[in-house]
């Protein structure tokens, strides 16, 4: 994320200046949107999470340390907003009864690709997020760890668990990888 942000701008943002907030929004919206989209993989959900993330940033502006990276702080907030978006999507799917994690048809006649998409969709949000970022988007463990505010070791462990969960899910669908 671009982080050559004027210190004065950050100070004004931290004190609630709306123009400073808009300026930061314009500067960071594309990068934040891209990061969220990599996690939620749905343009509408990504836009909702983007709005939510910037609102949370504005609400938490007093806690922002203007001597630190605004981009890293914003990415952490955006990651949490995206994670919440994944949880909501999962809950909605459960409520509507079209949850792929429980009611997907046996994929005997489905394509391998569809089965993998189903298995990926069944990952719990915490594993889904690291699988999306590390395995698909090939983001570095360090970057993911910073965004999730977790130690790198925890990220590696979740990637391992996500891979194992994917393999188990595919096995349940009758596919051995």
């Amino acid at each position, binding site marked *: 994320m671009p982080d050559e942000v004027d210190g004065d701008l950050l100070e004004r943002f931290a004190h609630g200046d*709306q123009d400073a907030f*808009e300026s930061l*929004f*314009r500067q960071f*919206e*594309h990068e934040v*949107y*891209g990061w969220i*989209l*990599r996690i939620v*993989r749905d*343009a509408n959900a*990504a*836009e909702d999470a*983007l*709005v*939510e993330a*910037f*609102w949370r940033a*504005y*609400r938490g502006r007093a806690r922002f340390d203007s001597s630190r990276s605004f981009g890293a702080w914003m990415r952490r907030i955006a990651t949490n907003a995206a994670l919440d978006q994944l949880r909501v999507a999962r809950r909605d799917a459960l409520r509507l009864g079209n949850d792929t994690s429980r009611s997907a048809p046996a994929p005997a006649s489905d394509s*391998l*690709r*569809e089965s*993998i*998409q189903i298995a*990926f969709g069944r990952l719990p949000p915490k594993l889904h997020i690291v*699988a*999306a970022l590390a*395995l*698909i*988007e*090939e983001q570095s463990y360090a970057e993911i760890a910073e965004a999730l505010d977790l130690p790198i070791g925890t990220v590696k462990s979740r990637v391992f668990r996500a*891979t194992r969960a*994917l*393999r188990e899910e*595919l096995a349940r669908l009758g596919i051995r*990888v």
Partner: protein
Amino acid sequence: MTEDTRLLALLRSAVPPVVTAGPSRDLWPLVVKQSQERPEWSWLDVGLAAGVIIALLIWPELLMLLAYHF
């Protein structure tokens, strides 16, 4: 090709990396609307603050415990 490499290759072909072009519309007005409509303090925040104040009134010695954490 190891099992993991094969799984990764299959995963990436089924769920390819996203190509981002930015939001489809200007989202700033929605951010402004949200920050005007949603209170910065939720009922949960207010409830927690009230709980802490009441607890401090009942057990003033808890102040030392709170002070320790700040």
